[in-house]
């Protein structure tokens, strides 16, 4: 991954909890990915990294607007971009709502390093299935 342009970023993490953003950043950065973060929908949608990133991790419960709306907006702007929905309220309904809003993967919180990395790798695979979930 040394051939990526300087300043570009691989993953955009949108979550209102600082500890989640920091933990995810720490794990992904150690794996060699460049990570940018945003704390809410508005911040995510205007983030400069959004245009060039290869993956977005998005919380479904954000303070300003619903994470589902954000997913739909991201899917509209970048139809090919892998999106991982992360949430602490992992019910069947939430999973289905995330899928129909355009999420590629569903990752329930809390997750450990391995679970996070395997989800990210699966999402970044060229032949990733349209939607998958982990429990």
């Amino acid at each position, binding site marked *: 991954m040394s051939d990526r342009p300087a300043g570009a970023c691989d993953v955009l993490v949108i979550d209102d*909890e600082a*500890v*989640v953003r*920091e*933990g*995810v950043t*720490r*794990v992904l950065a*150690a794996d060699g990915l460049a990570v940018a973060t945003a704390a809410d929908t508005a911040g995510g949608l205007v983030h400069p990294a959004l245009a060039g990133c290869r993956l977005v991790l998005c919380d479904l*419960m954000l303070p300003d607007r619903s994470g589902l709306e954000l997913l739909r907006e991201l899917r509209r702007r970048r139809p090919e971009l892998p999106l991982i929905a992360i*949430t*602490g*309220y*992992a*019910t*069947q*309904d939430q999973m289905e709502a995330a899928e129909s809003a355009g999420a590629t993967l569903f990752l*329930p*919180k*809390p*997750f*450990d*390093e*391995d679970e*996070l990395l395997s989800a990210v790798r699966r999402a970044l695979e060229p032949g990733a299935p349209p939607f998958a979930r982990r429990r």
Partner: protein
Amino acid sequence: MTSRIDTQIILAVGAVTALTIGTLGVLVVRAHRAALIAELQTSADQLSETIKSATLHDMLANSRENLQRQMDTIGSQRGIRNVRVYNKEGRIVFSSDRSEVGRSVDKRAEACYACHAADRPLEHLSITARARDFRDTDGAHLLGIINPIANQPSCSEASCHAHSPEARVLGVLDVSMSLAEVDRNIRLSQIRMAGIATVAIVAASLILFWLNRRLVVLPVQTLVSATRRVAEGDLATRIPVTARHELGDLARAFNEMVARLAEDQRKIVQADKLASVGRLAAGVAHEINNPLTGVLTYASFLLKRAGDQPELRADLEVIVRETKRCREIVRGLLDFARQTTPRRQPTDINAVVRHAVSIVTNEVALRHVELAVDLAQGLPELAVEADRLEQVFVNLLVNAADAAPEEGGRVTISSRQVNVPAAGHSRITSATCPKGCDLIDPTLRIRGVPAIRVLRACAGREAILHLDPTYGRFGHLAAEACDEGLLADFACARCRTSLALTDAGGVCPRCGAGLFGVNVPGAGQVAWCRRIGCHFTLWEAEEQRGLRAVVEIAVEDNGRGMTGAELAQLFEPFFTTKGARGTGLGLAVSWGIVESHGGTIDVVSEAERGTRFAVRLPLTVAAREA
């Protein structure tokens, strides 16, 4: 309030009694007086007739001295005040009071008025018309009676003095008698009446007071104190129904109301428990999972990089493990809170079992528990939601591994097709009373299935009873306990129609007691024995269908087994034998999942031998929906 009812009723009854007896008394005294006076009039009239005949001879002989003597004698008789003879002109010719002789009376005077009213003498008058009630100048109360002395041939023909033969009346005999005795009698009778009236009023009031107290005040007081007890939260309160009048109905209605209240409260507590779990789950999941994510990512990140520092590794492993335990607890809560219908697809149940086994293999191996898998081949596909049943099997396997002994622990999971009898497996999903009321109560479930709600009367107390809707099981829930061996009556809780079976077959073959039953639309009738504790039941239509095929997935361990109390609470949310290691939600969730697939979970446990959980899934589901 009670004293006011008492006082008011007694005052009212006292007044009515006084009025009635008073009126009656006045009428009786009047009648008595009239009878006495009539009697006196008759005897006075007889007396005057006697005087007339006794003096006839002297009159004919014109023996005035003799006549006067006779008047004197008669006048001195007790009760006789005066005897007079008036001539036609109204002059007193004889009198027992000699001073009166010669005195004249006006024909218009009271004594004469009856005959001379129209200025023309009349002879034939009734006793009443000839009698008069008056007071003399001394104030003595007297009864006077006049008796006309008619002309007779012997009179006009007598040589003594000349009475013309044309005259019809020669004079008048007037007898006055004292009414003092009569007055005294009447006074006595008035006093007696007043006495009787007083006694009657007091007696009526006392009887009424006692009746009122027994029939109204005491039952109402019982009701009031029972209401207070209920208000204070004692829903076991019942009133003994002794009265057969409206207050008895009220007591019955009260008992029924409280029984329903108790039942509703039980349901509310249950519903509340579930609702709180749901709210708690959502809240906890949201609030706890974010910090847990932080802990888990950092701890697992550090663990990977702890390298050759074994102490640090060990500590970090504890953090990761415990954080993951927290995660499982939160997931358990979420699973429990979720009540969705399964998305069924034709599934190879053995594949689901194998996947569940693969999930738990490591964990089971860590505990040195041997895991045996024994799957029957050729099982039909079942219409189930694989993920959710997998969750059930994982849960049962982990529980079994936990229960297995540390040395020589063994867990077996097996699948097979079995034929099961109706008893213990067939469900009563619809039930009606003879009048057609729906008896299924969707708000109360017995082992996950909506129960059958009936009214049970036992030892004079009525209470709601929920019958176990699984045919052949007796997990009935009674709002009120009843002693074993007693005969109870069962009725529809809505229309109160008796559920007793009176036809020829309506006798329990075990104990000889009567049977009661409910109708199952399209599937005959389910009967139970009326004797408390007699576990006889018969659903002929289901028994006739014979055995039915189900797929059974059994998980067995060789642990210490469970006590009866533990078995009873097994499927209750938050019940756990694992102490801090369990959430008490696993089996409750599993039950819900199996139930939503139309299946059952059966548990057989033997002390020191182990426990066997059998999940039975109906084939009919596959046939219908696959």
